[in-house]
């Protein structure tokens, strides 16, 4: 939509362009949005829509100084095997200049199963670290000062349980809860939408998250009790606009839920954080982040009445797109990751994870993850992009894209409101179906060759070199099972039973906060599976009706 007159000479350019040959390509973004040949001052939004960094509506960045003041946190996701192996990898990454920790859990831990459950067969320590109980959490952070290093934990359905283990582990190492800095992902709505890791039905799962947000707002002022995520929604195949819209709508839903509990919006909103994907379509991603900040700020201020400017800030972590990595010619992934990381930086992310080149094949080797970390360090220290704030501000193309994606997000908000809000929309599988359709569409484009993926459906010569891969020793599964059984054997069963009993009674009362009961259960050395099963006796579990 043109807001002003085209510049002088534009007609002549148009005439010259019309008679120039055009490449045989589709000129759409990865999300299928058409891109014009040229953007000019006619496409540029008003100055007040663009604004200034650290000032409402924050299109140009959440802080006045951004990377001139402090670089983004380099936070590589890591985890495999038992707590011992991951502790080693954490220390390797810190030694190599990483500035924050990020924990990847294995499938059993993510799904609330103990390592010795029959459901955990073959999965223990494979996709992340196995954490069954408090003792594992203590080993995980051995030798790391939790009062100094901020820690992120990517766990969702059983997040409140893991947080309890973390708080007690820190407490036992001499760091009180109110000094702990970090994030727990905990964004349960996006599980039903995209990542598909669940333990309980939607309503009690929302209650559990609400309990954690409420408890953290008074007990853990430096902690982010939720990381409202679009990463997984995008990985499942959504468009950029869907990623933006569904993530923000999930966020608004959590805000509404907390308000319904009687919290003041300014009591918890400053600690909400976000997590976005950095996909390969460079400018679309940058526009997405800028639009996200603007939308969040406006809604928090205008719709939810937040008065504290900190409540208006959409602060986010970014991860480069796992789904963009190819198994063919894996070294090309270094290039992809670098470009995606650059988009995150130019979009003003607070924290960044860069994928390793071998991650279409396995968890990363030490060498591969070092290259991924070095990629961030090169961007930070060699390229000069961090010398100025929001360098693409005022770009005709980027501002036009920012406006467009913002408008698309609003269209989705309206649609979701029509369905009765996000929880209802999820129960009706609306976002799930949008994602299924978008991912099918994209796959058709790739399968047909209309969209090129280098090394996969084009430029396929050059494959075949052996890539060294990380192998998880299968013996670690038994090692973890033995650890778990040893703790069960030596712990006092009285406190275990008492704490689980109290937890079940509290779970049946929707108005009680479960965090204190989870902390008691943690101190009694209950295992995650025991806690989840206790809660499932009260709440049941979740069965998805898949759409495709």
């Amino acid at each position, binding site marked *: 939509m043109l807001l002003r007159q085209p510049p002088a000479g534009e007609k002549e350019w148009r005439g010259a362009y019309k008679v120039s040959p055009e490449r045989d390509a589709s000129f759409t973004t990865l999300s299928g949005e058409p891109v014009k040949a040229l953007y000019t001052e006619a496409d540029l939004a008003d100055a007040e829509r663009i604004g200034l960094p650290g000032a409402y509506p924050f299109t140009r960045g959440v802080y006045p100084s951004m990377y001139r003041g402090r670089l983004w946190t380099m936070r590589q996701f890591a985890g495999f095997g038992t707590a011992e192996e991951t502790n080693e990898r954490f220390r390797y990454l810190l030694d190599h200049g990483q500035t924050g920790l990020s924990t990847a859990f294995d499938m059993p831990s993510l799904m609330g199963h103990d390592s010795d459950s029959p459901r955990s067969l073959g999965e223990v320590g*494979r996709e992340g670290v196995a954490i069954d109980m408090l003792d594992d959490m203590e080993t995980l952070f051995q030798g790391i000062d939790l009062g100094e290093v901020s820690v992120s934990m990517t766990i969702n359905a059983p997040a409140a349980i893991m947080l309890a283990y973390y708080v007690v582990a820190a407490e036992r190492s001499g760091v009180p809860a109110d000094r702990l800095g970090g994030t727990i992902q905990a964004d349960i709505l996006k599980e039903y939408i995209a990542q598909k890791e669940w333990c309980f039905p939607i309503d009690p799962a929302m209650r559990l998250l609400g309990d954690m947000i409420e408890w953290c707002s008074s007990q853990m002022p430096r902690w982010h009790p939720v990381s409202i995520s679009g990463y997984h929604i995008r990985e499942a195949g959504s468009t950029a606009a869907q990623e933006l819209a569904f993530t923000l709508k999930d966020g608004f839903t959590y805000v509404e839920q907390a308000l319904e509990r009687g919290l003041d919006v300014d009591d918890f909103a400053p600690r909400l954080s976000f997590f976005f994907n950095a996909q390969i379509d460079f400018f679309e991603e940058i526009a997405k982040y800028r639009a996200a900040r603007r939308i969040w700020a406006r809604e928090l201020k205008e719709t939810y009445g937040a008065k504290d400017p900190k409540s208006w800030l959409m602060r986010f972590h970014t991860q480069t797109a796992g789904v963009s990595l190819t198994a063919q010619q894996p070294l090309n992934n270094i290039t992809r990751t670098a470009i995606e990381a650059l988009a995150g930086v130019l979009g003003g992310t607070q924290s960044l994870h860069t994928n390793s080149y071998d991650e279409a094949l396995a968890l990363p080797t030490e060498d591969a993850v070092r290259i991924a970390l070095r990629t961030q360090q090169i961007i930070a220290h060699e390229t000069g992009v961090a010398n100025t704030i929001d360098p693409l501000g005022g770009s005709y193309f980027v501002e036009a894209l920012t406006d467009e994606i913002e408008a698309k997000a609003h269209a989705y908000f309206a649609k979701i409101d029509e369905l009765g809000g996000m929880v209802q929309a999820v129960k009706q599988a609306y976002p799930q179906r949008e994602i299924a359709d978008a991912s099918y569409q994209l796959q058709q484009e790739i399968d047909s060759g209309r969209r090129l993926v280098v090394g996969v459906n084009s430029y396929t010569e050059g494959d075949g070199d052996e890539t060294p891969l990380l192998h998880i020793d299968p013996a670690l599964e038994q090692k973890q099972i033995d650890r778990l059984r040893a703790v069960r054997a030596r712990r006092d069963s009285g406190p275990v039973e008492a704490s689980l009993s109290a937890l079940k009674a509290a779970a049946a009362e929707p108005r009680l906060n479960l965090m204190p009961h989870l902390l008691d259960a943690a101190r009694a050395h209950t295992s995650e599976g025991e806690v989840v099963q206790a809660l499932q006796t009260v709440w049941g579990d979740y069965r998805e009706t898949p759409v495709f």
Partner: protein
Amino acid sequence: MEVIYTGLHQTPEQIVETLIQEDADAVGLSILSGAHMTLVPRIIDLLKGQGVDNVLITVGGTIPQDDIAALERLGVAKVYTPGTTTQEIIDFIESAVIPRA
């Protein structure tokens, strides 16, 4: 050909039960977690234990090259890694399945 999608987080036992109940000609197992060298052999063993030997087994996901040969030796007909087109999978299954009379 009828396709039944069982949904996520199925155990080997649940998968084998479904294959038998539905009298399936073929199965596509998708594993992204890296646990394929435990779970696929387990499914194959369970099928053998039930006397089922005529289901075409295909596997897809995050499968390193080294494991492909091992899976094929166990009886997996095809392993699909990232980048495989949908049509390739369809063509193979349609040609390889021996329809029941």
